[in-house]
């Protein structure tokens, strides 16, 4: 690697980015130093093992990455708006769609999902923490530094440009030499290991940390969705890890897993990466389904309809999604029998998904629907996901897919399920639990602006893309000529699509404004139960105290808090004096952060093929692991006086544990 190529050069946009990144960094450093915030940052955030704070850090990262991926999207749409555009050069466009796809799925959807896992699950199951708080912090920092490693490729070394799933041999040394592709490998590898740990963490949390009276069949559906998504994570992230290791072996050590020469087989990559990649999209959509279930029930003032079939269908989706990966390469000619089996397995997913849709509808049926912000996004989700899912089923008909594959029809399908299913869901979840996290509600008026801009923008952007697919427009082309643009009719539709992207961008700006505005002016949540909720997280104050529950709640069925409130209204609740006990909590620790920094160093070293640095980083990782294993003072007790003080400060909260029959 020559040093002259270390900094990406040659493009004014990149210089602009360099300058703005430098300026922002200087500003942050100045702010932290001037206001003496370094210690605060270290103590309160970097070393925290509190799942709520980790959740907040995930949330902030996800929003930042949505912005980054969104800027990529806008740039692509500008380039494609008209034929023969030279706003972006070919290589630059290729980098942008690669980073757009990678960032949106791995560094936006995943952390957004983990944000909700962390913020909601322990509160919903009446736990004081996740099963492994230390590991949780490791997961976050691995994700974060992996994402940062990926993002610096923009200014140092060059971005990857072989597509978000980087098919070899294009992604091998022969065709993509240099650090760009390595950034992709290591950014995903490091954060992927973090995701795998999160999966383990939440499976065990849900199985083992529920408040002792909560049976699995009383558990709220969001937590069920987390369980099913985490199981899928356990099933597929190891495959991703190994597949990336294989590409690393090819690129770094001269191996031949996927090369064109020496017997390598690029198809094996396609096969393996989709074994992970397909379930991955269901991993991100399942928790969104969980959000819908919570929001719909709350704002219809009704029990969720068909609870058991909701649970069953989620588990079914997470398992059956393991058997559909070939639908991403029907056109590879693996054989009629292979295609038929996987086509039918793919269509089968539509059945449990449909059941969920029907159950949501019937939750609203004979309910009382309050159209609040979270509910708005849920109502936008239904039609969008229905149509996107239906086009998915059309894609699943293998021979029809020979015509859709890699066309804009496909692009339209997956944006419709990814945005309509995943993004809408997470945004709904964010609005729903925002008061719980921060103690105030997000402004409705600005939110509505954001909402409608997103909605209109979405359909204006992506509906024309279905038509473009039928017109033969393939994905990943940085430009098209006049003949395609005018004679074949691609140009007008692309232009419209670009307008839609801008509308979504403006919608996003409204949402950012909304958050900033609400920090000052947002309606404060003084009850802890601002939506008249049904599940345990609404029985404690907003924001929740460090230990979540002073006394573990007693749960007698589903929607525990809702029925508790009914009892309280009927006057069946006798306030007893409660006797607190000291609460056992984990200590803050800097090791996760330090370990992740070593991972970053290792990843950076291997990216530039500076083996000394890579190995040094790995040794650092091993040493921190070792240090941790010798750490014995890992926890403390919160004394009773402190709990009493905190609990006294809360006035009118009802609390589930005060039930007495």
């Amino acid at each position: 690697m020559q040093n002259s190529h270390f900094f990406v050069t040659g493009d004014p946009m990149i210089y602009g980015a360099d300058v703005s990144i430098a300026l922002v960094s200087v500003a942050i450093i100045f702010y932290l130093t001037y206001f003496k915030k370094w210690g605060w940052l270290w103590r309160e955030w970097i070393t925290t093992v509190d799942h709520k704070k980790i959740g907040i850090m995930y949330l902030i990262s996800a929003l930042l990455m949505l912005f980054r991926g969104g800027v990529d999207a806008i740039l692509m749409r500008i380039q494609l708006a008209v034929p023969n555009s030279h706003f972006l050069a070919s290589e630059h466009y290729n980098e942008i769609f690669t980073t757009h796809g990678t960032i949106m799925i791995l560094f936006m959807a995943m952390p957004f999902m983990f944000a909700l896992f962390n913020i909601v699950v322990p509160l919903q199951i009446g736990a004081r923490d996740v099963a492994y708080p230390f590991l949780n912090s490791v997961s976050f920092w691995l994700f974060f530094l992996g994402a940062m490693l990926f993002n610096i490729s923009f200014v140092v070394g060059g971005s990857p440009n072989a597509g978000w799933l980087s098919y070899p041999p294009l992604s091998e040394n022969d065709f993509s030499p240099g650090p760009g592709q390595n950034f992709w490998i290591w950014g995903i590898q490091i954060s992927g290991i973090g995701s795998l740990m999160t999966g383990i963490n939440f499976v065990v949390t849900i199985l083992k940390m529920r408040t002792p009276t909560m049976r699995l069949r009383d558990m709220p559906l969001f937590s069920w969705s987390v369980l099913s998504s985490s199981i899928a994570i356990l099933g597929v992230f190891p495959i991703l890890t190994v597949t990336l290791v294989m590409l690393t072996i090819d690129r770094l050590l001269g191996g031949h897993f996927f090369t064109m020469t020496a017997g390598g087989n690029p198809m094996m990559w396609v096969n393996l990466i989709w074994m992970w990649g397909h379930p991955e999209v269901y991993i991100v959509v399942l928790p969104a389904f969980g959000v819908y279930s919570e929001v719909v029930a709350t704002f219809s003032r009704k029990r969720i309809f068909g609870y058991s079939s909701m649970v069953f269908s989620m588990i079914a989706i997470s398992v059956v999604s393991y058997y559909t990966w070939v639908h991403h390469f029907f056109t590879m000619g693996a054989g009629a029998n292979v295609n038929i089996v996987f086509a039918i397995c793919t269509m089968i997913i539509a059945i449990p998904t449909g059941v969920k849709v029907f159950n949501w509808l019937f939750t609203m049926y004979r309910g009382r629907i309050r159209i609040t912000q979270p509910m708005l996004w849920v109502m936008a989700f239904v039609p969008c996901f229905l149509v996107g899912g239906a086009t998915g089923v059309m894609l699943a008909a293998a021979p029809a897919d020979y015509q859709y594959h890699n066309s804009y029809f496909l692009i339209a399908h997956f944006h419709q399920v990814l945005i309509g299913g995943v993004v809408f869901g997470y945004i709904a979840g964010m609005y729903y639990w925002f008061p719980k996290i921060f103690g105030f509600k997000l402004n409705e008026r600005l939110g509505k602006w954001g909402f409608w801009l997103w909605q209109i923008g979405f359909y204006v952007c992506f509906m024309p893309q279905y038509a473009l697919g039928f017109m033969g427009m393939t994905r990943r082309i940085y430009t098209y000529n006049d003949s395609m643009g005018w004679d074949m009719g691609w140009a007008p539709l692309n232009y419209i699509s670009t307008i839609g992207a801008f509308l979504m961008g403006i919608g996003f700006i409204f949402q950012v404004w909304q958050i900033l505005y609400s920090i000052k002016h947002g309606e404060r949540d003084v009850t802890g139960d601002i939506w008249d909720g049904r599940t345990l997280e609404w029985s404690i104050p907003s924001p929740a105290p460090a230990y979540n529950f002073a006394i573990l709640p007693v749960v007698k069925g589903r929607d525990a808090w809702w029925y508790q409130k009914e009892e309280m209204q009927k006057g069946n609740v006798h306030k007893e004096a409660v006797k607190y006990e000291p609460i056992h909590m984990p200590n803050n620790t800097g090791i996760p952060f330090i370990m992740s920094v070593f991972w970053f160093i290792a990843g950076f070293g291997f990216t530039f093929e500076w083996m000394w640095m890579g190995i040094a980083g790995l040794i650092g990782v091993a040493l921190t692991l070792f240090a941790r294993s010798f750490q014995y003072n890992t926890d403390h007790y919160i004394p009773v006086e402190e709990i009493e003080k905190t609990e006294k400060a809360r006035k009118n909260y009802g609390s589930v544990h005060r039930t007495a029959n």
Partner: protein
Amino acid sequence: MSNHEHTANMKAYTTGFALSIILTIIPIILVLNHLLSKTALVVSILLAAVLQFVVQLFFFMHIRDGEGPRYNVMALILGIIFVVTIVAGAIWIMSFNSQVQ
């Protein structure tokens, strides 16, 4: 989990050890002496391996220990299903044994 009832005792370990030695030697003998046809050989090697895996699980890893829901057993079963899917699926798909379209 480890604090409850233990199936771990010297007898179990020795039995397990003896079984695994036997299950290793059988395929070695079969292979080195070319005793069976190719398919039969592959089947017996795999069979011995699977049996030995079971021996490890029961005699060494004490899969039966513990109380309450057997989450570890469930995880293992799911894991085995996934393992079979990954390996068998890859072999099947990558064999490209027919022409399509």
